Each structure stands twice: as structure tokens, then as C-alpha cells.
């Protein structure tokens, strides 16, 4: 589904990704872990196409198409979802309006019929319920006045509504208490664990992986993947720390 090959990227002319390669197949859940400054968020933003994140080498192919050649909104329409570490507040634009327009823009891009207001509300209610989020919250402006945990829940509601093929979730676990972590973990499993979908979890800690079991765990250090393994690698990291595991 996603093939990243020897990817190099800079931010403000500073090299951050230095030859990163990773292949994700449909039906797989991958976790990327790494110390602060390893390039985790840069990887997410580069794949999402954020301005200022410049690809200087390598390639990324998504479902056979050149991902890096697409505009950010085209990547979304192609089935990519980026869960933000710090979801952005948009005063004056309600979640419902924002997500309906976003979904219908995606559908238009794929040559599908737009969803009616009633059908959209039905869908939104279902996905909000899945994440334990009150429908009233979705009528409020996007992320405005939401707590850190509510923003992360809202991200997952957005993911449920937009129904992507591949979700790249950047530190979705940060800011969540244990109950919220369980709910969000269950939400990710329900929405994304399918034979035709895949997830790339970017995380600093092992704890989310207790709820969303990865098939593969990768360690990112200094802009490239230095070790890959199964779920046991995350446990080793938790036990021994990054320095030990990277050196081993």
C-alpha cells in the first residue's frame, strides 16, 4: 500500500529524514517509535505534504501512485489520513460543516456522489458514538475549547467519518488519560483494522500499543529506521530505553 524508499527531507534547510525506507502492506499495523528529534513528526508531515517539509531525495508510492507529487488534499482523496499531534483550532467553522465539506470534496475527487446533509449527520453520529463523543461537540467550531484529550478523540471521529485506506497517526496517545486511551485504541481498531486498510502509528511510548497491537515495530533514530521487529521490540524499548536498544 505504501512504499517509502530512501526518503530524504529537510525542514528550513536542515536535513531531518536521511534515507528512510519502509513498506506497509494492506492489513498491517506498523508502529514507529523513536526518541525526541528522531524525525517522527517530520515523517508524518512529509507524507502529508505540509508546506516547508521539502523532499530532497527518495520516493514514496501510495497505492501505485507517486504520493510526493500530489497536493495535500489530493493525498486525502486518495485515502491518506494524517492524525495530528496538535490538532488545529478553527474558530467559526463547525466540525459538522468542516467534515461534510471535506468528505464531499474527497468524494468529488474520486468521482463519487456527495453525501446529503441527512446522510452525513447519520454517519457523523455513528462515528462520534464509536469514540464516546457527544454529537453536540461536533456542532461546535473545530477543536475550539476542546481539551487535549477531546482533540485526540475528535481526530479519531474525523478518521471514522473520512474512512481512509491508510492512517498515519502522530502521537495520537499523547494527552489521553487511561480511559480515553482505551476508547481511542478501540476506535482505531474498529475503524482501521481491516484487510484493505493499514495504520502507521507514530508514538513515543509503548502504552497505546497495549490497545492497538502492531504487527511491526520500527525504531527511528537520526532520520532513518535503525531496527525493525515485532511487538516485542516495543516492550524492550520500554524496559531498556532507546539508547540501549539502538546501541544493541
Amino acid at each position, binding site marked *: 500500500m505504501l512504499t517509502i524508499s530512501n526518503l530524504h527531507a529537510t525542514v528550513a534547510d536542515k536535513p531531518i529524514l536521511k534515507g528512510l525506507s519502509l513498506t506497509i502492506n494492506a492489513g498491517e499495523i506498523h508502529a514507529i517509535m523513536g526518541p525526541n528529534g528522531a524525525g517522527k513528526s517530520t515523517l508524518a508531515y512529509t507524507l*502529508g*505534504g*505540509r*508546506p516547508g517539509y521539502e523532499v530532497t531525495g527518495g520516493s514514496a508510492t501510495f497505492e501505485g501512485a507517486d504520493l510526493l507529487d500530489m*497536493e*495535500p*488534499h489530493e*493525498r*486525502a*482523496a486518495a485515502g491518506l*489520513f*494524517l492524525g*495530528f499531534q496538535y*490538532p*488545529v*483550532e*478553527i*474558530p*467559526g*467553522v463547525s466540525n459538522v*460543516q*468542516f*467534515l461534510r*465539506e*471535506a*468528505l464531499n*470534496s*474527497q468524494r468529488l*475527487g474520486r468521482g463519487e456522489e456527495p453525501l446529503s446533509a441527512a446522510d452525513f449527520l447519520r454517519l457523523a453520529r455513528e462515528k462520534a458514538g464509536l469514540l464516546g463523543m457527544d454529537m453536540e461537540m461536533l456542532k461546535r*467550531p473545530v477543536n475550539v475549547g476542546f481539551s487535549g484529550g477531546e482533540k485526540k478523540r475528535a481526530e479519531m471521529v*474525523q478518521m471514522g467519518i*473520512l474512512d481512509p485506506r491508510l492512517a498515519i497517526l502522530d502521537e495520537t496517545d499523547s494527552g489521553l488519560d487511561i480511559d480515553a486511551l482505551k476508547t481511542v485504541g478501540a476506535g482505531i481498531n474498529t475503524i482501521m483494522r481491516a484487510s484493505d486498510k493499514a495504520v502507521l502509528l507514530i508514538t513515543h511510548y509503548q502504552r497505546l500499543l497495549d490497545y492497538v497491537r502492531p504487527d511491526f515495530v520500527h525504531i527511528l533514530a537520526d532520520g532513518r529506521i535503525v531496527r525493525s521487529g515485532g511487538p516485542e521490540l516495543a516492550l524492550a524499548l520500554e524496559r531498556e530505553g532507546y539508547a540501549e536498544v539502538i546501541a544493541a
Partner: protein
Amino acid sequence: MNAALPLPLPTRKDEAWRYSDVEAAARIWSVDKPKRLVVAPGEALALALLQDADAGAAVVLDHVVEIGAGGTLAVHLLNLGGTLGRVTFDVTLARGAHFELKAALLGGEAQTLELVTTLRHAEPDATSDQRVRAIAAGRATTNYLGQIQVARGAQKTDAAQSFKAMLLDRTAAANAKPELEIFADDVKCAHGASVGELDRAALFYMASRGLPPARAKALLLEAFIAGLFDDMDDEAERARFHDAARSKLEALE
């Protein structure tokens, strides 16, 4: 009434014209006399003003308003037409009167759109609330000059004024000149002015959810002026304002 002497042609040395397009004004000078509006004591009036003159036109609309004791005037202004679109309000408030102004200045190309208000809180207990939003693209200039005078003895005056501008291009400009002259000691006057740009983080966030850049931009701009016209009583008029604002914003690409 005898024909009064024509008003002299303004120059930028006139404080109220310092940011204006006086060349455009000169082409049409002299302008009509100010429109006079008297709100009787206790009466409530609404005024909806949509300035959508053709491109190239120069428009100057002056208003002199007197609001009697306990009277209210609510003004909604959408100023978006012409090379020069200038709207002024000179308002005198009697005891317990209320003046409310919600305005949007939406300019592109080389337009100069401006709003000049002078509020005279002449007697105690009067209140005023002015909310002005400006969006400027291209080489457009948007100006808000807002003066509030609180007369000696006009205690318990409560005057609020807020101006926010959004610049879509480096060549666009916004000027704000809030001015308070207060000669009473028991009053509340709040004012704020800010000039900003579209939130890049929000634009990328919206794109990452599938919104094309033009649509994301339009949503943010609509949100910026959202609510200004929602409380217009006349539904048809409200729809006219919303539609005019939307098509202008789409043209600001």
C-alpha cells in the same frame, strides 16, 4: 434650504482622509450632502447598507445620525464596491441611547474601502458597540477610523469598538485609527484592533482532510466575518448580504 457652499476637496492632510484615495474622490467631487437620520426617543431603527458600486466607481456616503433618549439604531454595513468606497457615520447619542454597527469591508485589486465613525456620547447612560472586520487582497486598502467622544457629564457611557483585519497578500493594506476622547470619569470604553493573515496551520490541516486550497481559504474567510449579519431581522436582506459577501470572497482568490 439654500444651496450650501460645496465642501472643499479633501486632501490627505485632512485627518479623516489620511489613508483614502483622494484622487478617486476628486473625480466625483463634490459629493451629496450627508444623509440625516433622526431616531426619535425610545424608537428602535435598523439600517442595512450594502455598498456594491461597479468597479471603477467612487462612492462617498456620509451619514449624520441623532439618536434620541432611549432610542436605538442598529447598522449593518457591507462595503465592497467601487475603486473608492467610503462610508461615514457621525452619531450623537442622547441619554440612554444605543448605537450598534456591524460592518465588513471586503476589498481586492486596487480598491480603497473605508469606514469613518465619530460617536458623540453627549449624555449619560448611552451605549455603543462597533464591530468591524476587513479583508484585503491584491493592492486593496481597508481603513477604519473610529472616534469616540464622551462628553463631560456623560457618566456610565459604555462604548465598545473592535476592528480586525485580514491581509491576503503582501501588497494589501489595513489601517486602523481608534481614537478616544473622554471627558467623564465613570465610563467604560473598550477598543481593540488587530491585523493578521490566514492561518497557515489551519490551511494545511483543512487540506489534509481533503479540502482544496481555494475552498479552505474561503471557509476561513467566511468564518472571519461570520456572525456579523446573522442578527439582521429582514431575512431577504440578510440573505442578500450573505450572498454578496460570499461572491466577493470567491472573487478575492
